[in-house]
């Protein structure tokens, strides 16, 4: 038997934008086991419910993560709205859907860039982020922020998008589609990229279920699960297919996410066509009393929000289960038996968001 050694990986590592530590038990160049430890960026946001009233918490939940900030705010607002039996205007639902899909677009483009960076294709990383920049500009035009949008409120949204703005966004996305397909072809077809991704980090269908993977990780293992199909916000009116792949490897995860990029553009187009006129928010009176589980599909997978209220303006409990947290066991599974050089890439294929995980 070869000699075993333990190699620490992280919390500071060039491939990791955020801190996570892994102890890699190695046998020569092969990883036998990976032992994770998290907790470097824990901020205790959930316990802030005792100090901030339920309206102010919208701005706290947005700051859980810098990538899915819109969806965090939306998940929390939807949960409180359900508790208070508030019917959100349909236009607000559509606006939320459009912003959610824009978040998905920019998150997946960010991930593609990071992936390219992880396998050492710097120019491709720049191209992906160049495309992402246009989405961020669209966010700034429509919400006033590039990272934190602050457009959600309990009872609807704060800002409307006039028709000419929506039309201009669709035309920007139409123009982007061509550039996108040029960039994504490199990811899917280029020999050098494929040699790094194909057959690496296989997680079988059974393993994905047993380890409780979510989102693109689950869909890349051939399991059709997408919370958008539960029909929250305006997704019940939108026609789309869940993108899956049966290959179960890193390339499959890349394929699923690239498929979702184009699908998101399609969803935005549909939503802009169908968006009704009307109010964007309803006034909310009183304090929430009760509890609710809200499930929604973030770019990284399924997130859920548990909110328990007691009839005062301070909530009893707020709990967020973020997708990265659910994907860590699956990531550890892919690391077992992997080559040391593939470790950064395998960590990236789950699209880790450590700030989300630790809140």
């Amino acid at each position, binding site marked *: 038997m070869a000699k075993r050694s333990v190699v620490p990986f992280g919390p500071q590592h060039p491939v990791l934008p955020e801190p996570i530590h892994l102890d890699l038990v190695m046998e020569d160049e092969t990883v036998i086991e990976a032992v994770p430890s998290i907790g470097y960026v824990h901020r205790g946001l959930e316990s802030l419910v005792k100090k*901030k009233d339920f309206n102010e918490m919208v701005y706290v939940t947005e700051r859980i993560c810098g990538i899915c900030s819109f969806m965090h705010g939306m998940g929390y607002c939807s949960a409180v709205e359900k508790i208070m039996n508030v019917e959100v205007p349909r236009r607000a639902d559509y606006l939320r859907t459009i912003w959610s899909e824009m978040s998905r677009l920019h998150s997946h483009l960010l991930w593609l860039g990071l992936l390219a960076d992880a396998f050492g294709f710097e120019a491709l990383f720049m191209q992906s982020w160049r495309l992402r920049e246009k989405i961020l500009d669209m966010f700034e035009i429509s919400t006033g*922020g590039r990272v934190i949008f602050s457009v959600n409120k309990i009872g609807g949204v704060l800002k409307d998008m006039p028709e000419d703005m929506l039309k201009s966004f669709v035309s920007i996305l139409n123009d982007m589609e061509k550039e996108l397909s040029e960039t994504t*072809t490199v990811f899917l077809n280029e020999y050098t990229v494929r040699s790094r991704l194909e057959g690496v980090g296989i997680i079988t269908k059974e393993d994905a279920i047993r380890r409780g993977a979510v989102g693109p990780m689950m869909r890349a293992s051939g399991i059709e699960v997408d919370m958008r199909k539960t029909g929250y916000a305006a997704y019940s009116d939108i026609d789309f297919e869940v993108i899956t792949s049966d290959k179960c490897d890193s390339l499959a995860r890349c394929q699923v996410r690239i498929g979702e990029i184009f699908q998101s553009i399609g969803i935005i187009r549909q939503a802009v066509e169908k968006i009704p006129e009307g109010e964007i928010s309803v006034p909310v009176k009183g304090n929430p009393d009760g509890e609710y589980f809200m499930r929604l599909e973030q770019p990284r997978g399924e997130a859920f929000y548990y909110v328990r209220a007691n009839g005062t303006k301070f909530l009893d409990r707020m709990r967020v289960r973020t997708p990265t947290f659910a994907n860590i066991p699956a990531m550890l599974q892919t690391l077992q038996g992997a080559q040391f050089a593939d470790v950064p890439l395998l960590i990236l294929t789950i699209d880790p968001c450590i700030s989300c995980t630790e809140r």
Partner: protein
Amino acid sequence: MAQFMSFTKTVLRNLFSKPVTTAYPNVPREYPERTRGHVEIRIEDCILCGLCMRSCPPGAIHVDREAKKWNIARFDCIQCGYCVEKCPKKCLSIVPGYTKPDSSKHTETVKKEE
């Protein structure tokens, strides 16, 4: 199917096209109208009710009714716009233009004249 040199077209185009980035700060950035840069107050319409102070999530605003002063700690403000939404007289607004960097945290005071 695996391809070779699929990135070449992009590389060649990038070689002969203008850069995507701008020459900031020589070319100043133009912010869209909705950019949440900083909070501004039209003090003549303010009734010093203190709703902004009570609603501010990070507690950046302080209203002094006695001295008729409206104070904001620019470094604490998170530009969420909750005070703008809450203001009964609509005298608060979020306008483009980020606050300048500084070497110390300080509070900005606006005094309401009689």
